[in-house]
């Protein structure tokens, strides 16, 4: 079994179904269908093999047809597909063999119901990349606008409407008469030919502006087009194309003054509004054409009354706005935000009804704060991941359900996109049972004054991960930053280590106050302080039974008794400071990862107090299973390793048994930088069975941009993949770390690491999507009839074979 999730909900604009009860969201290779009433996912359309770039819902031709749920999707894999998304079922596939960046279908917007019988051809305008003509053309102008006959499933001849350097967004007018794109400071508008003939001449006008235009929108009824530019201005041209698109070709060339219109452009007037301080990303007319919605980087949705220019605001959304979609239901609309959230708005009042919460995007911090950990903690029992977000929150995301559960506001601040980052959540730790959380935050100083480090302890409410603050500690290690926070397995002890050279053990005193209901009140007090030769403490970990605390003092590992605060032993020395410590389950081994110029993954035996084995690997994350001795490490591949051998995959997950330096399984992954690993305990109800047995434990990998995959590391087919690669690993790595511990004498016979070794028989081994596994998944009432399923199932198997042959 394998679960993917954490995909971006905001890669392309979503689309409402005709009854406004469903929202179709492009989520990488699939289109997810969400219910607007509950905000939960209903189903998904699976079939595309690359990023889905547009989804167009077929509008109803008559009021009775409102219940019909058909849509067209276009993807980078070069196909346009036609779906019935109520079932969901693929109806038709059109392969045009060029990646499609954007698709609009203007013509069915104006097909009157009477014409249906005549069977007009349906045309789509697509934005594609020309893959063939690379020789004669300059590379710059390879993105083309083409016309596609959807009824006949092919591109229309050699008709190229326009070419640009970059893929642009095609915008179609609600009436279906025009569509346009922006191109730097220009605006190209085409008039859709009335007749459904293939080669009807498409007329085009161009409007000019002095700034780079970012977004355009058409008025639903009038010849008005609005455009936003990078400086935040909104331009509104009225009566564009009066000359070029005139119905009767009679020239009415009267030189009247055209206020605001540049360069003798074909428009009556042009007016400018300026409220946004940064570029405008969202522009949309209301369905009656009386209002214009605009939004941009500052996260404020502005409603302009078109006639008067009066404004109304939905302020403080907290994230740059990307898309605004009106629904057929006038009381509902949706905005997509850059932090992977889609808010459903109740319309005239603009209150947020529901939020479709995707996983929040990783936050980017100033350079000085790098290396403070990735701020990701796994809740093993509940299958949740806690990750810090840009708006000073900790988001709890369910890995099994693929949706956001809750957010905990860690700092009492609101995030405003574009602000300087002055407060940073540096670490988050969860107790084993997930009921307690500890976070640390740093307030950056202004020219050396006013810096503050806070350590906060939280306790979960009765349900739903509603955390409440129990204790704040200001400047826990004087002014030094916190390097790591870790919970004791019992949950009533926390260690925080600092770069200032000490670590503190915090203990929880819980007084149970019995008023109306049982109410536990936790308070945390400092129990002990320890330091080792004033060295910066860089990492900390408790052993599985909680009897030993390991704290890394730069290159050394110090072992302490956490209850009595007694130094038990000091272990060896690594070359560079240790950034990650982890006890390996119940076994008496300790894994330490150090980074820097001489990265190293080393495993230390607690019984012998010596190094067992080590690799020269740049480790991003280490995770150990609670009750087995195996652990997984996410290693970054060296930059020098050839990109083609890994196909853009820059990291590997290595599964080790603690006693054995040879990994039991290997997977290569993408975007490993900033990634995280975590073992999850299996809750039998949440996981479907494979071969009649549930997997013991699951491994979750979260990539640098928070896409994740959950899989069974001991699964058979995962093994098959890895076994074939054992040799590959041995040639990659295994190098002892000098002779001072007698390590080389034991492992001396291992092959030397040769970075230039040309034969690295790495096969991209990340298990590919296997549709035959997912076809039958889901509840039975959602499944299509068996006859349909069977053919699809067999088909998928066939595809697999052919792929293997290739």
């Amino acid at each position: 079994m394998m679960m993917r999730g954490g995909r971006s909900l905001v890669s392309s604009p979503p689309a409402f179904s005709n009854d406004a009860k469903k929202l179709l969201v492009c989520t990488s290779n699939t289109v997810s269908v969400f219910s607007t009433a509950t905000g939960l996912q209903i189903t998904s359309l699976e079939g595309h093999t690359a990023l889905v770039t547009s989804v167009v819902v077929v509008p109803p031709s008559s009021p009775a047809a409102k219940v019909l749920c058909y849509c067209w999707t276009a993807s980078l894999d070069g196909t346009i597909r036609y779906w019935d998304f109520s079932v969901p079922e693929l109806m038709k596939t059109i392969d045009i063999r060029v990646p499609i960046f954007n698709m609009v279908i203007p013509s069915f917007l104006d097909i009157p119901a009477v014409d249906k019988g005549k069977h007009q051809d349906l045309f789509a305008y697509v934005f594609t990349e020309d893959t063939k003509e690379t020789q004669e053309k300059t590379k710059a102008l390879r993105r083309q606008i083409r016309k596609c006959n959807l009824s006949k499933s092919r591109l229309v001849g050699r008709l190229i409407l326009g070419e640009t350097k970059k893929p642009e967004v095609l915008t179609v007018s609600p009436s279906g008469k025009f569509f346009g794109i922006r191109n730097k400071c220009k605006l190209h508008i085409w008039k859709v030919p009335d007749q459904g003939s293939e080669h009807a001449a498409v007329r085009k006008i161009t409007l000019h502006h002095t700034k780079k235009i970012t977004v355009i929108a058409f008025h639903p009824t009038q010849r008005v087009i609005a455009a936003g530019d990078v400086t935040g201005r909104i331009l509104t041209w009225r009566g564009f194309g009066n000359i070029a698109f005139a119905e009767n070709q009679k020239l009415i060339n009267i030189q009247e003054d055209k206020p605001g219109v540049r360069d003798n452009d074909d428009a009556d007037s042009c007016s400018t509004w300026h409220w946004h301080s940064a570029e405008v990303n969202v522009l949309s007319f209301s369905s009656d054409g009386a209002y214009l919605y605009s939004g941009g980087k500052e996260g404020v949705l502005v409603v302009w009354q078109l006639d008067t220019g009066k404004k109304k605001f939905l302020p403080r959304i907290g994230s740059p706005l990307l898309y605004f979609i009106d629904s057929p239901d006038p009381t509902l609309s949706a905005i997509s935000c850059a932090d992977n959230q889609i808010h459903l708005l109740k319309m005239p009042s603009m209150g947020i009804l529901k939020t479709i919460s995707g996983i929040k995007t990783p936050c980017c911090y100033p350079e000085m704060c790098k290396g403070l950990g990735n701020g990701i903690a796994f809740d093993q029992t509940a299958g949740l991941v806690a990750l810090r977000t840009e708006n000073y929150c900790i988001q709890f995301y369910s890995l099994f359900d693929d949706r956001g559960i809750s957010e905990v506001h860690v700092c009492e601040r609101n995030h405003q996109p574009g602000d300087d980052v002055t407060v940073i959540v540096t670490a988050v730790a969860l107790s084993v049972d997930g009921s307690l959380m500890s976070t640390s935050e740093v307030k950056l100083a202004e020219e050396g004054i006013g810096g503050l480090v806070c350590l906060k302890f939280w306790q979960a409410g009765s349900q739903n991960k509603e955390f409440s603050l129990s204790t704040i500690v200001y400047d826990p290690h004087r002014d030094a930053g916190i390097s790591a926070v870790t919970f004791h397995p019992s949950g009533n002890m926390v260690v925080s280590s600092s770069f200032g050279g000490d670590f503190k053990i915090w203990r929880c005193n819980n007084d149970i106050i019995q008023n109306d209901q049982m109410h536990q009140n936790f308070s945390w007090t400092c129990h002990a302080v320890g330091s080792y030769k004033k060295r910066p403490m860089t990492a900390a970990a408790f052993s599985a039974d909680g009897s030993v605390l390991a704290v890394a003092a730069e290159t050394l590992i110090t072992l302490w008794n956490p209850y009595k605060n007694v130094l038990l032993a000091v272990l060896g020395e690594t070359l560079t400071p240790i950034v990650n410590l982890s006890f390996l389950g119940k076994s008496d081994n300790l894994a330490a990862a150090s980074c820097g110029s001489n990265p190293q993954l080393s495993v230390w035996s607690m019984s012998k107090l010596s190094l067992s084995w080590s690799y020269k690997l740049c480790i991003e994350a280490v995770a150990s299973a609670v009750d087995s001795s195996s652990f997984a490490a996410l290693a970054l591949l060296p930059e020098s390793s050839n990109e083609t051998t890994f196909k853009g995959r820059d990291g590997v997950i290595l599964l080790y048994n603690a006693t054995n330096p040879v990994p039991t399984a290997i997977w290569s992954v993408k975007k490993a930088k900033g990634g995280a690993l975590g073992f999850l305990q299996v809750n039998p109800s949440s996981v479907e069975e494979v071969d009649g047995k549930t997997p013991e434990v699951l491994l979750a990998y979260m990539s640098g941009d928070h896409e994740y995959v959950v899989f069974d590391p001991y699964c058979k087919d995962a093994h098959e993949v890895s076994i074939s690669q054992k040799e590959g690993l041995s040639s990659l790595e295994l190098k002892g770390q000098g002779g001072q511990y007698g390590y080389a004498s034991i492992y001396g016979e291992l092959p030397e690491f040769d970075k230039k070794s040309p034969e690295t028989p790495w096969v991209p081994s990340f298990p590919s999507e296997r549709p035959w596994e997912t076809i039958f998944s889901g509840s039975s009432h959602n499944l299509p009839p068996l006859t349909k399923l069977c053919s699809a199932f067999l088909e998928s198997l066939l595809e697999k074979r052919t792929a293997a042959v290739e």
Partner: protein
Amino acid sequence: MAEIRAEEQTLAISKTFLIKPKLKPKARTLPQTPESKYWSSFKSTQIPNLISSISSLSFSPSPPHPFAAAYSASVSLFSPLSLSDGDVSPSSTISSFSDVVSSISFRSDGLLLAASDLSGLVQVFDVKSRTPLRRLRSHTRPVRFVKYPVLDKLHLLSGGDDAVVKFWDVAGESVVLDLMGHKDYVRCGDCSPVSPDLFVTGSYDHTVKVWDVRVEDSRSVLEVNHGKPVEDVIYLPSGGLIATAGGNSVKIWDLIGGGRMVHSMESHNKTVTSICVGRIRKENCGDESMEDRILSVGLDGYMKVFDYGNMKVTHSMRFPAPLMSVGFSPDCRTRVIGTSNGIIFAGRRKGKENVESGGGGNVLGFESISEPERRGLRPTYFRYFHRGQSEKPVEGDYLVMRNKKVKLAEHDKLLKKFRHKDALVSVLNKKNRENVVAVMEELVTRKKLLKCVSNLDADELGLLLTFLSKNATMPRYSSLLMGLTEKVIEMRAEDIRSSDPLKGHIRNLKRSIEEELRIQHSLQEIQGIISPLLRIAGRR
């Protein structure tokens, strides 16, 4: 019929966060019990400037329970109602005494007040007119206590340094009984709350004697030995127990059990001077019940609350002077404590007015004044259109909550408008240093603090420098303020040089810094002394 407009639940993404000072660390003591919360809920007011020590305090049994305080050669009456308004002047004063007043006692209806003085005279006053109605002279030595029986309006009990306890007929100004038996000064006594005939007296001969006026030949019916000179004795409300105070201890005796000592409370460090019965309202499992406590005050300046049901000290309060007397009003709302230096600490508790004392009883008797019948509302009345607006919700009503309006302080409002300098100035004017530091911290997070400093004009700079000179050396804020002070002086050096008032501020600042340096030096010296000792201690 209420019209309810149900708003669909909408979510807010961002909240309003007020600029709040950093949290202070809580003292690592036990959390407040409900009981200590109750006792500290008495809002304390000081009645200062009374001459000499407060020898006795007595509450009138009739509402609103005014209390009388005896000090020097006068007795003052205070109204608890004016106390809650903050008025601490006595409502009336009786000063027709020739010597120091030792003890006072209200009659059970609160109309008469008996007072004894050290000249050996016991006088009975009308509380309203303050005229002495009776003068009872028989004691040959100073009288130390006088007491009206609880259930008897005609008699009076007194005792004094002549070791005789006298039972008076007040109307006839005559002694009914001379009770001999004490071998030393009689200092205190109390009358039984359940019987008009029984009373106890305590004496410096360490004994407490129980007397019964019905007994022939005036002998005490029971005698207990406290072990120390007895300073105060009271009957507990059941009438079966008495509490005695003497030395550092308060002892509880079971009279019905033949004078057996039930418990001895020894938590005072100096002599316990006075005790009285206090009451606390307990709410367990929904129903209310009153529980009695013993309040004891001592020369160590502590007031202790003793739960004689559980034999535990449940609360203790410290006062800055030796305490001489204590009183607790029958309606449980006023607690007064007299000190030896002429200050009364009166504590008044907020609460309903209808808490009646057990023994008080309504004297006046016209409590149920029939309310005028309410006329029905008609559309001609203005109130008709306002009907139901202030209606309280009935149980079972569904409440549609209106979002609470967030109260913004002035600096919050200014910060919301990004008027950073104005916010800083406004909070500096408010003189709350915690808020000032909080606003400064917020400005640091916005990276605007130094910009603000550079924009301040001369007056505002003076304001800031005053604040800095006062607070820069406070350990809690010094990490921020020291750095800021340095920057301010650096940035505004020229303005400061050109202005004399600013120079004055700088001088103040310098002085406070020098003082702080001196403190730090001496602290370091102490550390130098201590650390080798600690080292040695750690080696053992």
